[in-house]
């Protein structure tokens, strides 16, 4: 079962670019509105100035939220996918031990799975996909940069 595909990276890149395009459009609207209020303001300009201050604060708050949360989140997901898909694959057999609380890895929150691989415990991150694993069952894992990319049922015959 493939958990991370090439298309995911393209999707993440598109999502990142779309967010940026929306931000640029909103920034242009803000600049246009602010300049319009400035140039249309009469001699008694106070209400226009207060209006401009309010839209500037709103845009400023959105910018902080955008760059520190929204866009940052999309960018980190894209970078992680690029890293994962570009990393060397490791194929291992592992016995599923259990699942810990989700952890933030490379800025992206992921499920944390524990496997016993070659007699020692190994933590593997699951980026996406509804995966239900049975404790004590052996699986064939394909791991890229610590992230589970593909999982399959164990075929002991093929292994031996």
């Amino acid at each position, binding site marked *: 079962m493939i958990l991370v595909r090439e298309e995911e990276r393209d999707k993440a890149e598109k999502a990142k670019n779309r967010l940026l395009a929306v931000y640029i459009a909103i920034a242009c609207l803000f600049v246009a509105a602010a300049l319009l209020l400035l140039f249309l303001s009469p001699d008694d*300009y106070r209400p226009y100035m207060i209006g401009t201050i309010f839209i500037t604060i709103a845009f400023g708050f959105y910018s*902080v939220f955008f760059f520190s949360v929204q866009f940052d989140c999309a960018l980190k997901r894209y970078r992680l996918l690029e890293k994962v898909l570009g990393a060397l694959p490791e194929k291992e057999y592992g016995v599923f031990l259990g699942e810990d609380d989700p952890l933030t890895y490379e800025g992206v929150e992921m499920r944390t799975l524990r496997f016993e691989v070659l007699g020692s415990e190994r933590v593997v991150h699951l980026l996406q996909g509804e995966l239900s694993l049975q404790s004590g069952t052996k699986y064939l894992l394909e791991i890229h940069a610590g992230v589970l990319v593909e999982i399959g049922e164990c075929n002991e015959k093929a292994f031996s």
Partner: protein
Amino acid sequence: MKKRFLDSLPSDWVKYLIIVIVSVVLWVWVFGLYHAPKETEKLEVFFAGEVKDHSFEDVAAKAVDGVKKVTLSVAYPWWGNAFDEKYSVVALTASDVVIVPKEIAKDTDCKRAFAELSGMGEPFVQEGVQYGAYLSKERKEELSAYFKFEYENYVVFAVASSLNSGQATDHSFKLIEWLLG
């Protein structure tokens, strides 16, 4: 997303605060700059005496169309040399309209300093030309709410070198008309 936003608040609150302060300071400055009165939209009135109420500046600015700001500068005639200095530097060169007692007006070389006024109020004539106009008693009484008139007669002039005395606008003459009532 909401969780990430809430998580970012403790570290990002300073940014939000800076945005509020910068927005207010920036736009107050920009609007102030954009609406700052041009040279032709402000008038400087020189008064030889004491000003009782500076609200005259607002009243006068409203009285003349196209003028956004009127400022008063004063010098007391009893200052002697200091008055002469300020009168020649501020009143005769940098001001637009001058209000001085008749005694000072007589000692001024009006030809060099003031624009000609014709048909305005009771004329103040020097060398056969009307340069100023006397403030009438009624008008003096009305304006005494703003100015302390300590002399019998006061004369109003338009400074010749001012942009507003016919070079670019005639705001000085309009203000004088309003002053004369």
